Structures are given as structure tokens and as C-alpha cells.
């Protein structure tokens, strides 16, 4: 959707579509050049275990676009828990979480880019995880019941949304009382310039 519009002139739906299109492109052509880093080398630089990355199918991390390698450990996901991952992408964190919660637990991954979900589905099936459910949905409108998950995680999704408050409200709604949300996110030291605000490309940086 390179319609030349400024971000500020776009509706939240248009922005959501812009994001879905961009990540569809990433899922289909992870080796293209983007204004943000993608892939296994980037995951390694962030601190994901080299052993893990090398022992997994390369498709698991080649479309990786998260922002932190600490998220899964900090989520403290435990056996038997139900974890919701917002923006699961190609499924790298999803696979790690599925390993943590075990056969009695469940990981629900949502993503707004269908090709990303397809990629994650293939990867997780290949790894033998059957405790994972992958759904196409925006984080602002979750297809889950109230009070249904123990923990929500995300790895760099809020910066892409025009309605961040809606995501927070949805997280709170689906969490069980006492549940936690652990979110890795890019934040800024100073406010972005107007040019950066306006640019569709900079929306992803």
C-alpha cells in the first residue's frame, strides 16, 4: 500500500494493512533489504543461542524480526501454562515457549500476516510441537475469551500499531486474574521528528 499517504493521514485500519503487507513481504522474501534487520544472523546478534539456531530448521529464524532475545526467559513460562504470543512471526519465540509449557501447556500465536503464520505453522509442525495454536488476528482485537491465558508476550509489536491502548486493553481482558504480560519493545530516547512521523517507511523503524 505505497499510496504515498503520510502516516498521520492514515486510519488505524490502513496502518494495520500496511504492516500486514510489509510482514507478508518479509515472510515471502526474508532476504530482501528492509529498513530493519531480519533473519538468523540478526537473531544471533541479539543473543539467541547459536546452538539453538543451528539445530533448528533455518526457516524458523530466517524471517525473525523481534527486538530482544531475553523475552522468552523473562516470560518465566512454566509447564502447563497457556501463553499468548502477539505477533508470533515465523515462530522462533513460539517454539521456545512451546518447549517451556510442555505437553500440558499451550501456546497461542497470533499474527496479522497470513504468510508469517503459514511459515510458523510449517516450522512448528516440523519441530513436532502439537501444543501450539496459530491464528490470524490483529493484537487490537483478539479472538480469545476473557480471563483465558496465564501470560501474554510480544517481541516488538506496539511500535507498529496505531491503537496501542486497544492492545493493552485486549491483553488485560484475555489475561486471567493474577496473569502477567511481558513485552519487549523498541522505545525512543527523544521524540521522533515530524518527517520520521510522516514517513511510511520509518513507521517500521
Amino acid at each position: 500500500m505505497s499510496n504515498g499517504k503520510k502516516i498521520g493521514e492514515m486510519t488505524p485500519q490502513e496502518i494495520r494493512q500496511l504492516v500486514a503487507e510489509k510482514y507478508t513481504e518479509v515472510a515471502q522474501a526474508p532476504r530482501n533489504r528492509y529498513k530493519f534487520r531480519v533473519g538468523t544472523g540478526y537473531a544471533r546478534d541479539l543473543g539467541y543461542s547459536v546452538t539453538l539456531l543451528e539445530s533448528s530448521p533455518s526457516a524458523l529464524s530466517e524471517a525473525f524480526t523481534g527486538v530482544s532475545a531475553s523475552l522468552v526467559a523473562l516470560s518465566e513460562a512454566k509447564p502447563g501454562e497457556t501463553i499468548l504470543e502477539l505477533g508470533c512471526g515465523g515462530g522462533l519465540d513460539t517454539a521456545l515457549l512451546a518447549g517451556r509449557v510442555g505437553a500440558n501447556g499451550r501456546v497461542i500465536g497470533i499474527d496479522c500476516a497470513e504468510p508469517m503464520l503459514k511459515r510458523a505453522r510449517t516450522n512448528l509442525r516440523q519441530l513436532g510441537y502439537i501444543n501450539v495454536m496459530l491464528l490470524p488476528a490483529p493484537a487490537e482485537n483478539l479472538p480469545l475469551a476473557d480471563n483465558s491465558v496465564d501470560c501474554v508476550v510480544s517481541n516488538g509489536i506496539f511500535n507498529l500499531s496505531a491503537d496501542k491502548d486497544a492492545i493493552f486493553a485486549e491483553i488485560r481482558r484475555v489475561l486471567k486474574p493474577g496473569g502477567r504480560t511481558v513485552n519487549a519493545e523498541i522505545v525512543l530516547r527523544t521524540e521522533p521528528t515530524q518527517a520520521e512521523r510522516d514517513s511510511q517507511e520509518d513507521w517500521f523503524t
Partner: protein
Amino acid sequence: MSEKGFLTRYIGADFTKVEILTREPNKRTKNPNAYVIVARAYKEQALPMPVRPELSLANARDSLKELWLFPIAPEFCNLACTHCLYAASPLRKNPYRLTEEELTRIFTELDSLGAAPHLLVTGGEPTLHPQLYTLLAQVDQRGYSFQLHTNGTRIHPKEAEHLAGFAHLKKVQISLEGPSPELNDAVMGQGLYQRVLRAIAELRTREVPVAIAVTPMESNQDHLTQIEQFAEEKGAELVHILLYDLGAAIDNGLKPAAVTPHNDGPMDITLMCDKGVAYSEGKYFACPVLVKDPDARLGNSLSEALSPQAREQVMRLRDTKAACAVCLKGSS
């Protein structure tokens, strides 16, 4: 979005315990202005909603479980404890004495409502009433279960004998504010530790059930376990009393214990005003704590004190009175 802006959104969405777990460099983009945080927040655990019993006139028989009775005015006492919520002292000679006629009137009204609450006879120091034991004998003869709250200073062998003779006396509750003369007497007055111990001995010798009441405060919070052991040695129950920001406690700047003393068994979430009313100086009040507060006066009769209007008045008190906040926080 700044770090602060991000965290503010958690708060805005009603999350609690918002915390940044790590800050890491941004490796995703070339933006030197950006860095990565991992934040965590919780959806608060829903507290089980206490089911409050409905104290009502229509169902007084089942809902009126307690009646606090002040045979003398709350501020009339032979001691002047530093934490007294009524700032009672020997200098405050309020002449009110509960009469036998008054007591009979109370019983008549209880009978007409079909209610037989447990009576808590308190003060002030109730033993300063010259006919206390005659009044208690009436209570006992009518078959009401009751208890007596006293500082023990006027419980000698003769009084202990009296008390031992009551069939329906459930316990005598005596205050002790420290496990040593120094700690106790700083609150109750010189020599009181020994006098309290003597009273407990007189009662226990005659197998009268005794409860030792301690008010956990900053000054005794490190000695609560000792008091508990002391009570166990004496064969007495231990009761924790809440410290209210009223009376002498304000003047003396006393603070409640920072550590909550452990309590075995299920917590009683029923407030005093949920299960009864207090009768003091000829009037009914919402609870024994607020008997000197005109706002808590519910009427001259039980039927007034249990009326729907009076119950609404109690609900309004809970929203406005600092003492109510103490009860709601600490249960009663």
C-alpha cells in the same frame, strides 16, 4: 514512543506492578535514538468478594449476632492507657451508669425481635459500675452468652468467684500490651503488668476462660510472639485488637505494628457493624469503636438501630470514617 509513554499505557489499562526487567541496545534498526526494553505487568488478582451478612430488622433473629454493652461511659476508667481510643482516664468522671431498668428494656426489645445476640460487656472499665455483678447475673439468668472486657485491676478473689459462677460467661478478656513490665507498663501504667498477671491467675485458678488482648503497635511488634507464648502458658486465648487513630492514640502519636501478626485459622471478614450494634449511654451506635461519635448514633431503640435507614447510615460511615478504614483493612 518513549519508555515513559509505554509504561504509562500499562497503568492506563489498569495493570499493576509495572516493571522494566531489562534495557538492551536496539540492534533491529539503525536508529541511534532507540533502545529496547522488556517490561512486565500484572492483571491484579481479584479478591474474593466478602459476602457481607445482612444485618436487618426483618431478620434480627438470625442477623443480630452481637450486642456491645457499655455499663459505664466509654471514657470512664481507672487507667489512662496511651492507646485508648476513647482517651479514657480516671479524670473523666462521666456519671452515666447502666440501670437495671435499661437492661430490662433491652431484653424486652430483644425478645420482641426474637433475637438473642452474644453480649460483649465492655467500657471504659466496666467493673467501675457499682452493680456490675448484679447486672451480669441478670444477663446470665436470661441465658444470654456473654463476655466481659476488663483491665483486670479490680478482679480480686471475690470477683473471680462471681465470674466463675456464671453459666453463660464465655470468657473474660484482659488487655496486656507487652510481655514484660517495661513494655506493658509503658502503655497501661506503672505496676499494671503485675496486677494484670494477678487477675489472670485468679481467673484461671477458678477455670474462668481468659482471652489476653494485645494491640499490635510499633512499640510491641517485636514481642508479639512472646505474648502469644505467654498466653499459651497461662491457658489463655490470644486476641489481636486493632489500633484506631482515635483518642489517646492520636495524642500519643501511636502507630500500628508494621508487621501483621500471623493468625491461625480463617480470617474473620465480618465487620463488627455487620453483625451487631453497640449500646452506650442510653443510645445505640453502629459499633463499639464509634460510640463517642454522634455520626454513628443509630437511635434510641434496637428497631431504630436496625432499620433500613440506619443500615444505610452505617454504609455511609464506612465510606467516610477513618476508623472504618481500619476495620475494613484489618477485619475485626
